[in-house]
Every structure is written in C-alpha cells, then in structure tokens.
C-alpha cells in the first residue's frame, strides 16, 4: 500500500516543487494539497494521510497551530514542519505541538525525502540544530538546581492562538467569528481574554507579539538600492 502524503503551503509554486520532489519516490503518493493550516486540518480529517507536510508561515492558521490540532485529534498523526528559520522558539513550539520532523525550506530538496523516509520507519527527523537543542534540553534536566529556562509566557489556549493570528492578520472580531464559526460575542470574549492574559492594551501590541512569537511571519526586508519617492517610473 502506498504512503499517502498531504502537502500544505500557501504558495502554489512551492507546492509544485514539493510535489515534484516527492512524487518520484516509489511507493508514495500525494493524496491532497492545502493552501493554509485550516484547510490542512480539514483535509487531513477527510483524507487520513500517513504524513502531513506543513509550512509554518501560512495564513488563517499557521503550520504550528495546525500541527497542534492534528496531533491533538490523533496523537499518531505524523507531521513534518517546513520552516524558513530554525530559531529556538520555532523549534520549541514545533516539538511542543507534536511535530516528528523538522526541515528547513532551504534544505527541503536535500532533506525532505529523508524526513518522510524516517517517519515512514516510525522515526523522527530533525536538523542538526534541533538535535543539539533536544540534547541540551535533555542534559539540562539532569541539573535540577541550575534553572536557565526563559520565563514562561502566559498559557494561551489553542483557540486563543488562532484568534491572535487572525487579529494580527488584520481581521475584525466579526471576521474572526466568521472564520472560526463562532458568535461575534464569543470572538470578542476571546479577544479580551487574550489582551488581559498578555497585559496588552492595543492591537499593535498584539501584532508585535504575533510576529515575535512566529504566530505570523513577515517578509524579510530588502535593502532598496535607490529610493525614488515621488518620481514616476
């Protein structure tokens, strides 16, 4: 029986590249594609893939939140997270969400096939940096006295994280309610709970929090060569 893969990335050109990379492998098939985390969760429920490959930076529901939902619904669900950065925080969140594979997008052509093969054999696949971090965390646990852990962030529910992403993407409470199939009142309650837990007073604070915590991702700035403000090209 073929290994069934579900691929989620908001850029079709990346999905085409991933499909091309994986389709050629004997015994694997792409059973579905999704353009954001929410669609990935829905399609995973319908299609029951063996492995889900999720981009981290997707609109509506990011890859980390989608991973969390997938693994909460089915702890055996095998997720590979694709990311542009292997920052400590993204690694920590991906592991915490239950991802079993972690691949940098820049290395996907080299590592993704190996990652799927590892998960197929019920193993995990991480970049060397993730492995180092996991090992360091394991070793740290042996030193109960020396606590160098960063201060813990207030505990947010999965739903609150979803609401943060949608608000930070510029949606109103009414639009959040519509996307999440909630009443506007419930969406507003989530919003005020989030603001209270995080001690925020404005949406600007929330957007900064969402960017800093990789709930949404922003484009890397490019040095513009020669600003020509006001001049017609």
């Amino acid at each position, binding site marked *: 029986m073929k290994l069934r893969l579900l691929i989620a990335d*908001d*850029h*079709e*050109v*990346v*999905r*085409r*590249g*991933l*499909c*091309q*990379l994986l389709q050629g492998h004997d015994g694997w098939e792409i059973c579905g594609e999704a353009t954001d985390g929410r669609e990935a969760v829905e399609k995973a429920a319908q299609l029951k893939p063996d492995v889900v490959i999720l981009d981290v930076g997707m609109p509506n529901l990011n890859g980390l939140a989608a991973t969390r939902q997938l693994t909460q619904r089915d702890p055996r669900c095998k997720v590979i997270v694709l990311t542009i950065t292997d920052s400590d925080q993204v690694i920590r969140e991906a592991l915490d969400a239950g991802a079993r594979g972690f691949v940098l*997008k*820049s290395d*996907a*052509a*080299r590592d*993704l096939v190996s990652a799927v093969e590892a998960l197929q054999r019920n193993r995990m696949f991480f970049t060397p940096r993730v492995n180092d971090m996991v090992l360091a965390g394991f070793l740290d646990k042996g030193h109960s006295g020396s606590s160098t852990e960063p201060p813990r962030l207030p505990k947010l529910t999965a739903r609150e994280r979803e609401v943060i992403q949608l608000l930070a993407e510029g949606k109103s409470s009414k639009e959040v309610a519509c996307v999440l199939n909630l009443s506007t009142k419930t969406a507003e309650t989530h919003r005020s709970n989030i603001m209270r837990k995080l001690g925020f007073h404005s949406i600007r604070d929330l957007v900064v929090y969402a960017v800093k915590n990789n709930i949404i991702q922003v*484009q*890397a700035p*490019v*040095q*513009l*060569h*020669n600003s*020509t403000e006001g001049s017609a*090209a």
Partner: protein
Amino acid sequence: MTIRILVVDDHPVVRHGLRTLLGGHPEWEIIDEAEDGLDAVAKAGRLNPDVVVLDITMPKMSGLEACRLIRKAMPKCEVLMVTQHDSPQMMREALEAGARGYVVKSNAARDLLRAVERVSQHLPFTALNGQSVDTDVGR
C-alpha cells in the same frame, strides 16, 4: 522559436516548482538554474538566455543588483522578477533596475506563464496581489 529561460531562486524547492510550472510549455526550454544573484549573473553571461526568471531576496547578491548587471551586459535579455514582495515600491525598484516583468510568488501559478510570454516578446507584465496588468510602466 524556442525561448531559453534561466531560473534563479535560492530555494531549490521553489526552483523545482518554477520548472514544473514552466515545463509544460512546448516552446520553452529551462537552460539552467542559479541559486543567488552572483550565480545568475555568471550563468546569464555564459548561456545568454532570452528570459531570466529572478527572485529578489537572495544571498550573496540580491535579484535587483543581478538584474542591473544582466541588463547592462545583455540588453536583449529580459528579466522577470518572481518575488514574495507584494509591494508597489519594490515593483518600481525592480522596473527601474531593468526588469520587464514582476510577479508575486503567491500568484505565480496564475501569472507566471502569461508573464513569461509577455516579457519574451519584450512586452511588460506587472502584477501585484489581486491585479495583473499588462502595462508599459517602467520603460
């Protein structure tokens, strides 16, 4: 007549995707790939492509700088920017650097083929999110 295309992006998986999207056209040939701006300039000089499909944010040399150098050395070679930057300012910068076309990556599947068709005929194509315009802006 065959259109010879050089594909430039620092992510191999994106290059695979661009190849797949462009590969369906019988008269287009992907002659090579490059992974940064420097590589793009060197390969364009050596292979003399008709169209360079060029990312902007890349290591070593950005797509904007590579575009300037390619256009200066080979004025007949057309450059199509394919970028994540959905920004009028960046589009203007690209056109000023000599690009003939500008496509946002998230819309590449919709716009790429039309854009390559246009720029290969030395006609402009610019498209930000939600709008694609065959226009004479920039030249």
